């Protein structure tokens, strides 16, 4: 990966789809499952995480030559915790309802392995601009995945999307989707879909290379 110089846009795009933090890398699962019971909560959580990710990536990247190697993990965690505290108070100021719905999970962004993972794997080795783009891409990819989960769970479990009624009154809510177990099932469903796409693509590539080798032979 490091052999080809990549533009900022590439760093941005990869987080959205090819290296999507939730569906492909399966990182940061706790908030993904816990607060995705409605689309609104999921989106808010996703954006909060994206903000922390971008900011911590920028700071870690700009301080990368000053941080001693031995204490780098502790330093990263302190930087992340600072921004999470900011977000915590920000959400509390903007919408108290949202703050109550998300609860302790805003604080728990600190231990989201995705953020620490990006700081360690990317921001500590790359320039500020590229780290910011990487954080933005990963963050939006994370928010997108959370939204996918939240939307499915809200539509099936409550019959609504962003609290707007979608179905006729006779629709029977799938209560299990709102409950914790629904989170596991929905995420399993999305992973199945992604696995299926991946396998189909691999099969096609395999078939096309076989076809090519036949032609050359």
């Amino acid at each position, binding site marked *: 990966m490091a052999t080809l110089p990549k533009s900022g846009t590439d760093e941005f795009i990869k987080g959205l789809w090819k290296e999507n933090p939730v569906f492909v890398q399966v990182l940061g*699962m706790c*908030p993904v*499952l816990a607060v995705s019971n409605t689309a609104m909560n999921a989106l808010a959580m996703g954006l909060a995480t994206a903000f922390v990710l971008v900011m911590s990536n920028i700071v870690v990247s700009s301080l990368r030559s000053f941080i001693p190697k031995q204490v780098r993990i502790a330093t990263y965690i302190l930087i992340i915790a600072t921004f999470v505290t900011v977000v915590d108070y920000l959400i509390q100021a903007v919408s108290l309802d949202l703050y109550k719905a998300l609860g302790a999970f805003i604080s728990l962004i600190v*231990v989201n392995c995705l953020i620490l993972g990006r700081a360690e794997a990317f921001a500590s080795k790359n320039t500020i601009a590229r780290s910011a783009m990487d954080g933005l891409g990963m963050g939006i990819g994370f928010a997108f995945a959370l939204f996918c989960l939240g939307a499915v769970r809200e539509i099936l479990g409550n019959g609504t999307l962003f609290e707007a009624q979608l179905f006729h009154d006779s629709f029977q809510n799938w209560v299990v989707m709102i*409950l914790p*177990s*629904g989170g*596991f099932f929905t995420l399993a469903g999305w992973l199945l879909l992604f696995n299926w796409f991946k396998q189909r693509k691999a099969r096609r590539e395999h078939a096309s290379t076989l076809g090519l080798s036949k032609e050359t032979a």
Partner: protein
Amino acid sequence: MHDESLWTIFINASLVNNFVLAYFLGICPFLGVSSKLETASRMGAAVTFVMLVSSICAFGIQALLVAINAPYLKLISFIAVIASTVQLVEMFIKKVSPALFRSLGIFLPLITTNCAILGLALFQTNKGYSFVQCIVYALGAGAGFTLALVLMAGLREKLELAEVPEVTRGTAMALMIAGLLSVAFMGFGGLGS
């Protein structure tokens, strides 16, 4: 919240509101190290131990932060203390019981980034538990975590031999099992109240 009996707190933390299956805390080790029964139970023991220690520390910090009127430092000081506690515990175990240290191995340092630990510290301060209640809460949460991890590992060991479609192998399968376990644990609802 203050007058909850100790037994209620324990049942609540371990079964009814199981940290893994109801609060989704500590999912990473839950999915990561739950493929073998033996490692799962060791991991459970290590997490319970760290939970206990960090819960006691968090109680002290909270009292201190209230005293100096600096609630915005809560998160930063919690995570810093948990990280250093894990490190201390690691050194302590290494000195006192090398056998135990070897059996816990790599799992000890990894516990720092386990959200169940930080979650426990935050929940207990939110609920305003007393010192004894905190200890019982930590023990209950640890027991619940261990139970979930061991159950999961047992199921996954059996599934190694089962024939499943290629697409479902790996994380997707683990998540579906976790979902079923979570449904089963919902049966405990109302037990401790």
